């Protein structure tokens, strides 16, 4: 049975990427969240230089998901899920490097900030 025969009339104008309705898309998102959560102890060990705790990792994953919570377009949701799954595979198979995973965690400083104020500049040597 082809996809077009299964779709309701209103959706026939746009071809879906993966899911046909919001329920299916929600299931995909929740599954992706679940596999990220299950991977947390392995991420902690594989990328050990980042000194992550479980709560910190959970907050980071939640933050990444919440950043897109306002999206309503089905195809955009599907593409985001696919991109999230690609990120997951790269993280799980350790194709990334230590600093690469730190970029997904917004609160982590991956660069040294410029000194602000007299004392900080003094410590730097200026």
């Amino acid at each position, binding site marked *: 049975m082809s996809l077009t025969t299964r779709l309701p009339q209103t959706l026939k104008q746009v071809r879906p990427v993966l899911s046909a309705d919001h329920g299916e898309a*929600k299931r995909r998102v*929740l599954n992706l*969240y*679940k596999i990220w959560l*299950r991977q947390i102890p392995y991420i902690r060990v594989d990328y050990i230089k980042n000194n992550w705790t479980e709560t910190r990792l959970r907050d980071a994953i*939640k933050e990444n998901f919440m950043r897109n919570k306002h999206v309503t377009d089905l195809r955009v949701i599907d593409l985001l899920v696919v991109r999230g799954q690609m990120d997951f595979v790269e993280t799980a198979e350790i194709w990334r490097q230590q600093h690469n995973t730190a970029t997904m965690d917004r609160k982590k400083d991956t660069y040294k900030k410029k000194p602000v104020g007299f004392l900080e500049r003094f410590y730097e040597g200026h």
Partner: protein
Amino acid sequence: MLKTILRHGCRLRSVVNMRFSAPLCNNIHTLTPSNVQANGQIWPHVFVSRRTRMIDQFVKDAGQMRTSPPLTPRDIESRVLRICNEYDKIQEANKNKITLVTHFMNDLGLDSLDHVEIIVALENEFGFEIPDADYDKLYTVQNVVDYLIKKMNVTDRSKTTVSSAPDPRYDDHHH
């Protein structure tokens, strides 16, 4: 502790007896059903009886391993409530007021991602995977407890199959 030493001592003594004194039977070279092995070979009854006795002893020894006490519904409730209390997204005000009828979304203000987190924590605690289709049954603590009881076949007076004591008098784990 003295009881266990005496019990273990007694068991060793019987093994020693078995090894050094082979029992003399009258039917060594007779064709009894116990003598005939699967492929029709006749084996002296002495060796057959000794082998089965040693195997029985090994099985009894293996059965001495200590198992955890049987799960009761109250155990499951307390574990589920403990996990819900440890969840850090719940505000401090609600923490100790989680009861059996608390609804995750309505009463505690969690969303579907938090619900997934709670279920993953429950999976880690109880050691088995909860399939996706059952997620929408598990919105209250009472539903979670009932589901777990059903899945793990917990009854009120369940007895373990492997006893951690050779003597049934010590079966309720108070030694």
